[in-house]
């Protein structure tokens, strides 16, 4: 009864129906992503503990400490909201919102795996665009702007230094990262992430090893994780651009970091590790792409945490040096390689 009404409505007003479905999907996506990001924080603390011969959270919520992040969230979201005197109030208030909003924009275009129905692969993506790879790349760089807003508006010298560092780093690394995405697109003959995944009969990590390394480094830089966390280097500039943020606003920035980490890893999996591609598992063929996708994702996430606990931090000038002097030329080489292999031998 209801179903038939809906189908009728969909047939009559396809545009409005599409809009409603899109909004519902976006809402589900936003809440799911937040929960997953919280799980990710928990995962990081546990894995970090494992690397460091300790346990990590194991008190709150049973033996595994799964509710630790719940406690953190409750605390952060009920803390006093301080806007420092002398801060540029509107910008200060909007910075975390912009940060989270841009991550959601990225999330909209990223496929979160795929399901197989009737032998047909259906990617789980909210907005399937022709240029989604490029769109994601562009939206990721907007995040540096939100960090800059946060740093600039705080009326704090440490924040400002962090913001400047963020911008300098972003400029140095967006270029090689963009070139890497282009190389991938050339090889896949498409800028659509879904098509890029489908084009990977051979994973691009094998076809373009240099590109993979450059993209991985640039991605870590974009995420602002060790050894590239100069924007919030605790030992140098206190907490960088979020020094003055507290309570719920800091909570947003804090979780946003992890959401970006999740999305960045998904992007890496899609572009280089063959996304959800993998041999179909017979019994549960319905979700077998999802299983492959999540396995790859978790390996990438753990690797990111592993790098974080084991490497010391670069100085900001060394970071930009690395970006301009090494990664950029190498990405050019990679581009040439991609053009040669992708266009002439394919």
């Amino acid at each position, binding site marked *: 009864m209801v179903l038939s009404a809906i189908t009728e409505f969909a047939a009559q007003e396809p545009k409005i129906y599409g809009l409603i479905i899109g909004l519902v999907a976006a809402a589900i996506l936003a809440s799911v992503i937040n929960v997953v990001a919280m799980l990710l924080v928990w995962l990081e*603390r546990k894995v970090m*503990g494992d690397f*460091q*011969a*300790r*346990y*990590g*959270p*194991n*008190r*709150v919520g049973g033996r595994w*400490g799964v*509710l*630790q992040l*719940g*406690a*953190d*969230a*409750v*605390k*952060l979201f*009920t*803390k*006093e*909201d*301080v806007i420092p005197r002398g801060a540029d109030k509107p910008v200060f208030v909007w910075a975390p919102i912009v940060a989270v909003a841009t991550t959601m924009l990225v999330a909209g275009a990223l496929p979160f795996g795929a399901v197989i129905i009737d032998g047909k692969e259906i990617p789980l993506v909210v907005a399937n665009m022709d240029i989604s790879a490029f769109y994601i790349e562009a939206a990721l760089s907007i995040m540096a702007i939100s960090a800059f807003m946060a740093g600039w508006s705080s009326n704090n010298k440490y924040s400002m230094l962090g913001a400047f560092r963020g911008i300098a780093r972003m400029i140095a690394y967006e270029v090689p990262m963009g070139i890497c995405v282009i190389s991938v697109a050339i090889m896949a003959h498409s800028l659509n992430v879904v098509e890029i995944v489908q084009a990977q009969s051979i994973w691009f990590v094998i076809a373009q090893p240099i590109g993979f390394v450059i993209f991985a480094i640039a991605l870590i830089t974009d995420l602002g994780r060790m050894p590239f966390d100069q924007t919030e280097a*605790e*030992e140098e500039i*206190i*907490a960088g651009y*979020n*020094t*003055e*943020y*507290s*309570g719920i606003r*800091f909570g947003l920035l804090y979780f946003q970091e992890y959401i970006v980490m999740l999305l960045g890893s998904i992007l890496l999996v899609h572009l280089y590790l063959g996304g959800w591609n993998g041999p179909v598992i017979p019994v549960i063929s319905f979700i077998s792409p999802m299983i492959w996708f999540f396995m790859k994702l978790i390996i990438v996430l753990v690797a990111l945490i592993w790098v974080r606990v084991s490497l010391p931090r670069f100085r900001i000038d060394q970071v930009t040096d690395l970006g301009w002097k090494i990664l950029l030329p190498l990405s050019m080489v990679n581009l040439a390689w991609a053009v040669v292999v992708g266009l002439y031998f394919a």
Partner: protein
Amino acid sequence: MGISDVIPLPVAVDKELEKWTIWGRPLTDVWFTTTEKIHEIIDMGPIKNVLNWGRKNSLWFLMQPMGCCGVEMLVFGCPHYDCDRFGIFPRATPRQVDVMIISGYITRKYLPAIKNLWEQIPEPKWVMAIGECAISGGPFYDSYNIVNDTSKFFPIDVFVPGCPPRPEKFIEGFRALQEKIKQREDKRGY
């Protein structure tokens, strides 16, 4: 100043609503309300327990080593004692912490600085005195430059003796604070 003051409701509705109660209070108090009233309601009900559960399990402290106890504070965060087990976590900026550990001698010169730090911490916040110097001046009680009684300046919730206290004592102190928060006995009354 609530919504009801601005937009007068029809009398009939008002009367009907007055009969409804929540946690023994008229619903109108909650429904058309001010911030203070919300706080009152939260204080009464079980929501406060949930909030306090979150707060007590996520005590981030200010990384502010001041003396011998500072060294043990460092060790307290390291694998052998692993404060992360309890959700305790060091942060470098006062804006993002809940607990300030006074881990050493407060001198006349340092008192204004540490008081500023305390004022920068957003509510709810707690303070712990760790080590003799923070409690009473310790070995330096008769010095010309030491503030003896720290509790005159800070609402200290937990006193942890030791010179310096073993890292276990830091855990003990934090657990005492958690218990205090749970029982709503802390000095500032959260």
